[in-house]
């Protein structure tokens, strides 16, 4: 009989080692707290839905991913840290920013990226903001050049290669002075693209340009048919730009590559027929002008991405921007250009904003609910199962330890954030887990009632209870999986933790509760059916425990006298 339950001790030790390993992993990553969702720590979540501007229903996953990258960089420019921009489903982008309450964020994220080609009228180096690393090479004269595709670039001047580390730390908007001349904020009254090349800056434009500083970025309205004053991404130069020559949507594609027989990275552009015609005439005019007016600027979101100079008219709608690119900078520029051509518009579908106070309160409420729920279940188990309550409590404690470790580790590795519905899922799972013990204990009783000895009942009862537990958990798992697939937004967390804890429940029942029961069944207290063990004959509803051949003293043999006070 001693071997019937296998080697419970060994199983328990191995299981304990696995749990210890989980905590070892936590120790290695030195992370002891789960990653909290924004509804628990406060923050803003914005859901954007992409729509095709050309009216077709499908959204290209690559376009969506590209848009995500651009939005990520926009959010990063706020410098709020720990932002997360993810795609969801086939047309959603979810932006999560902790502890930021700026309405600015919503504006920034929701706006459609605008890529435009404008003529350059003046370039001036500006003192970068004090936080920026002083740059040794002012790239004012080092503009990249544009050449017809396939030709070697006539002027391989180094370019203002975008390098991330030179980006200034974001600054709080410090109420910049408004441009001296009021500017129209809506298109319609300015210069249309076909006349844009003939536009010349007015006195007012020159004056505004002179007084413009780069920390005013964004304050100058970016209107298609109006001039624009903008800075480059490093905020080392400011540009006076004419009205839009070509819209980014006229660009069909852009790619980075190394032309044959060359070593330098270049960015290839391709325009559609409208864009090609406009580009040819614009480059033709620009090529005749004196520097710096022989450049055109690629402007994304009021930021000059690149300002290549032109040496000749470029026909055919294909162009190549060369300069001092490396693979990374060339790819980055190509991506930006592609994004400008994206036929995507974003609609702000959902904004959810939780203050840190409210978040803390929700977390507290979740924890309180968990504690109350746990206490109630444990209380009930002790009341009904008496000594076996220890099994319930220790199993629940182990399940809790594993769940906690898993959540922390998942937060670390895959960025799983525990939110309020997630906590609810865990609390509901307390019931699911405890139910496994009920199934098992009741089975043991049934077996004893059918005349089995206690130790046998623990084993045979397990074989039958096992099936039921697996079915119960399978149903629960099925629900969790379907819910996870179909769930909307934050309630996904509920499905996830419910599924997770169901899996943990199976592990705990098989590798902890069962061996523990076997071991307890071998002890005197439980195995002989002590009246507080929850396995007493009276408690099981039989007059005597079958198989306990020891002659037991009177109290246990006369159920009527037993503790009725519970």
């Amino acid at each position, binding site marked *: 009989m001693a071997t019937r339950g296998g080697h419970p001790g060994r199983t328990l030790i191995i299981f304990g080692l696995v749990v210890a390993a989980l905590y070892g992993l936590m120790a290695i990553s030195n992370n002891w707290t789960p990653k909290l969702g924004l509804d628990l720590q406060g923050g803003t979540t914005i859901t954007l839905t992409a729509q095709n501007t050309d009216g077709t229903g499908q959204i290209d996953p690559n376009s969506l991913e590209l848009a995500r990258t651009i939005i990520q960089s926009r959010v990063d420019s706020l410098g709020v840290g720990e932002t997360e921009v993810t795609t969801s489903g086939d047309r959603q982008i979810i932006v999560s920013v902790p502890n930021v309450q700026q309405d600015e964020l919503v504006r920034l994220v929701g706006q459609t990226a605008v890529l435009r080609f404008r003529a350059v009228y003046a370039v001036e180096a500006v003192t970068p903001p004090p936080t920026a690393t002083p740059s040794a090479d002012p790239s004012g004269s080092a503009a990249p050049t544009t050449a017809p595709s396939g030709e070697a670039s006539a002027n391989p001047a180094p370019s203002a290669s975008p390098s991330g580390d030179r980006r200034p730390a974001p600054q709080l908007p410090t109420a910049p002075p408004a441009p001296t001349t009021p500017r129209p904020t809506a298109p319609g009254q300015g210069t249309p693209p076909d006349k844009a090349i003939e536009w010349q800056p007015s006195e007012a434009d020159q004056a505004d340009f002179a007084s413009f500083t780069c920390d005013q970025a964004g304050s100058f309205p970016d209107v298609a048919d109006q001039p624009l004053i903008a800075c480059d991404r490093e905020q080392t130069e400011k540009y006076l730009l004419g009205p839009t020559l070509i819209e980014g949507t006229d660009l069909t594609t852009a790619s980075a590559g190394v032309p044959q027989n060359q070593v330098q990275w270049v960015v290839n552009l391709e325009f559609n027929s409208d864009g090609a015609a406009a580009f040819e005439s614009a480059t033709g005019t620009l090529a005749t002008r004196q520097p710096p007016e022989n450049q055109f600027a690629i402007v994304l979101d009021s930021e000059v991405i690149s300002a290549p100079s032109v040496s000749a008219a470029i026909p055919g709608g294909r162009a190549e921007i060369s300069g001092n690119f490396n693979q990374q900078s060339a790819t980055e520029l190509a991506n930006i250009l592609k994004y400008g051509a994206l036929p995507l518009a974003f609609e702000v579908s959902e904004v959810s904003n939780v203050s840190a106070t409210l978040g803390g309160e929700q977390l507290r409420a979740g924890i309180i609910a968990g504690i109350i729920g746990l206490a109630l*279940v444990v209380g009930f188990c002790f009341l009904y199962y008496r000594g076996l309550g220890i099994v319930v409590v220790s199993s629940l404690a182990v399940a809790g330890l594993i769940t906690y470790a898993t959540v922390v580790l998942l937060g670390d590795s895959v960025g799983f954030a525990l939110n309020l519905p997630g906590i609810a899922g865990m609390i509901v799972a307390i019931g699911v887990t405890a139910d496994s013990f009920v199934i098992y204990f009741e089975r043991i009783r049934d077996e004893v009632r059918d005349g089995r000895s206690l130790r046998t009942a623990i084993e045979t009862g397990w074989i039958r209870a096992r099936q039921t537990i697996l079915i119960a958990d399978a149903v629960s798992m099925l629900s969790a999986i379907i*819910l996870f697939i179909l769930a909307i937004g934050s309630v996904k967390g509920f499905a996830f933790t419910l599924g997770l804890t169901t899996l943990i429940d199976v592990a705990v029942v098989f590798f902890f509760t069962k061996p523990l029961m076997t071991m307890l069944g071998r002890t005197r207290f439980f195995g002989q059916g002590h009246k507080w063990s929850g396995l007493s004959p009276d408690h099981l509803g039989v007059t005597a425990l079958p198989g306990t051949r020891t002659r037991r003293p009177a109290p246990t043999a006369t159920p009527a006298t037993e503790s009725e006070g519970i």
Partner: protein
Amino acid sequence: MSRLSQFGHKLYTGEVSYNFIGNRRRWYIVSAILIAVSILSIGIRGLDWGIEFEGGADFQVQAAVTDATVEEFTDAVNNAGVADLGEVTVTTVGNDQVRVQTRSLEPVDEVPLVRSAIAEEAGVPTEQVAYSLIGASWGGQITDRALIALGVFLLLVTLVIWAYFRNWKMSVAALIALLHDLVLTIGVYALVGFTVTPATVIGVLTILGYSLYDTVVVFDKVRENVRDLTSSTRQTYSEAANLAVNQVLVRSINTTIIGVLPVAALLFTGAFILGEGPLKDLALALFVGMISGAYSSIFIATPLLAQLKEREPEMQKLTKRVLARRAKTDARTSAAGTATPVDATPYDPPIESADDATDEPSSPDTPARPRITVTSSQPAIVNRPGRPTSEGASGRPQPQHKPRSQRKR
């Protein structure tokens, strides 16, 4: 508690037996009334759909609540400078929270206006005003999504039931119980007047799983009890099913209590500490659904199953055989001169024993005869041939080895 254990034991052996199946009309009527109330409350009160489904803006702020709060905040929001604001709903939660709901606002232009107006009224920094905003078309998408989820879930659950039971009668009974739980849960939701949010939908979908699981447990036992039913004449299908229900009763109650306790804790904290949010929405749906699921698997699903099964010619024959045998036994008992067989039987079920176990059409007209004989005198061993049955001290009837003609009863 040990009394309860004893009780559980008696239920298991059949010493105490509640006649769930025989009294099915009573339970059908109870459920019919509950469902009628649910449908009425859904129809009349309607469901309070959250802004997640209809689109809208919801602002929450901490502020001391007085009698004038609602009016003050309504005025403040109306004067925030947003055109066509439409109806503004201001509610107070507890005594320190104010909630303002409006139509869906423009995130860039309109939200800051309303937000700062609320912040000013509450006397807190703008950052302290939490808000969520759902675009109108997005709300529509979420509604579609929820309906799709419900449809897919019902379909899958039906498939699982079908695959698990492999018996259309069990499937039908389980499905009806499922729909019963669904209607009841939504009805209670309408009655209580909680807002329907995505968390509610999740809760409702989860209880479909629970309800199914409850039914699986009971039907499993029924299946076990009826395995060799037709080869003997001891029990009718209804009686075997009824015994199964009685046997799993304690387990069902325990399971439900243990499942409901944490949910009750959620409901309590959700409703009284937080006031708003996913906790209470989820918890209410789960709370009602779990209780209803346990109820329906015992009081609705099993009687329905028995009813469907008793229609089969095979089962009708069995019922006839069983009754004929009982009539014979009874006749012999009367012949033996025992005037009151009930009193003479030490294993007379003390509770509800007089309930008429069979309103079956084939029931012979012997109304006065107590129907206890079979279910009560040879209960647990009926379907367990080969199990030890000889604990002299177990307090149960023992197999008698005397020929029937020599028994004195």
